């Protein structure tokens, strides 16, 4: 077994502001997905507010600068994450395919012994 981070991708739809019935259904399906796969989730993680609420702290040559906005502007962004324990990468990909939302970036977690 190995731990995988599922980085849930946002496609720019703001679920926190006046969702359409279609978006509400996706949101409801996502809740169901978490219920169905609860036994594999070792850390529920978090759902993030949209990137427009992000603040980025940059360290450049001894100075620390605080800027409003995400570290990278893109159509897609990380909208949340959870940690799941699964047998292997194939199982992680198979499960990610069942995600009712837009998409997932799968990244294995660095174990203490690998540091």
């Amino acid at each position, binding site marked *: 077994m190995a*731990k995988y*981070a599922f*980085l849930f*991708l946002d496609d720019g739809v703001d679920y*926190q502001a006046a969702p359409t019935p279609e978006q509400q259904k996706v949101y409801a399906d996502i809740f169901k997905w978490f219920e169905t796969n609860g036994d594999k989730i070792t*850390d529920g*993680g*978090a*759902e*993030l*507010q949209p*990137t427009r*609420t*992000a*603040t*980025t*702290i*940059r*360290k450049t040559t001894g100075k*620390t600068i*605080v800027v409003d906005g*995400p*570290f*990278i502007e*893109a159509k*897609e962004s*990380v909208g*949340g*994450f959870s*940690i799941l324990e699964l047998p292997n*990468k194939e199982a*992680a*990909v198979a499960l*990610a*395919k069942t*995600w009712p*939302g*837009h*998409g*997932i*970036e*799968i*990244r*294995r*977690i*660095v174990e203490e012994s690998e*540091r």
Partner: protein
Amino acid sequence: MAQYVLLFLEQEGWKDQSKEAKAPAYATIGKWWEDLSQKGILKGGGELQPMRTATTVRRVNGTMKVTEGPFIESKEHVGGFGMIEVPDLDAAIRVAKSWPGGNVEVRPIVVH
């Protein structure tokens, strides 16, 4: 109190260094992590394998398509994350500034 996620940003290639080269950074980060956990500020988190190990699954025309690689190619990417509980954004920024690693993106958490 409010909850924030700190996305720890990393330059690609950092984790490919030798264990010895990374040891001082891991030691400083380990201390920071322990200190903030003991204070009850840090509520958990994780470290991610390098961006090149990523697999992305996304919906294209109704079907889930699998591609090797991250959702976006960039010099900088998310290398790990921590969840913190602090009074407000100013406090979250102060915690982010104290991070001994590189750049940090701070994002508020959606409370259900």
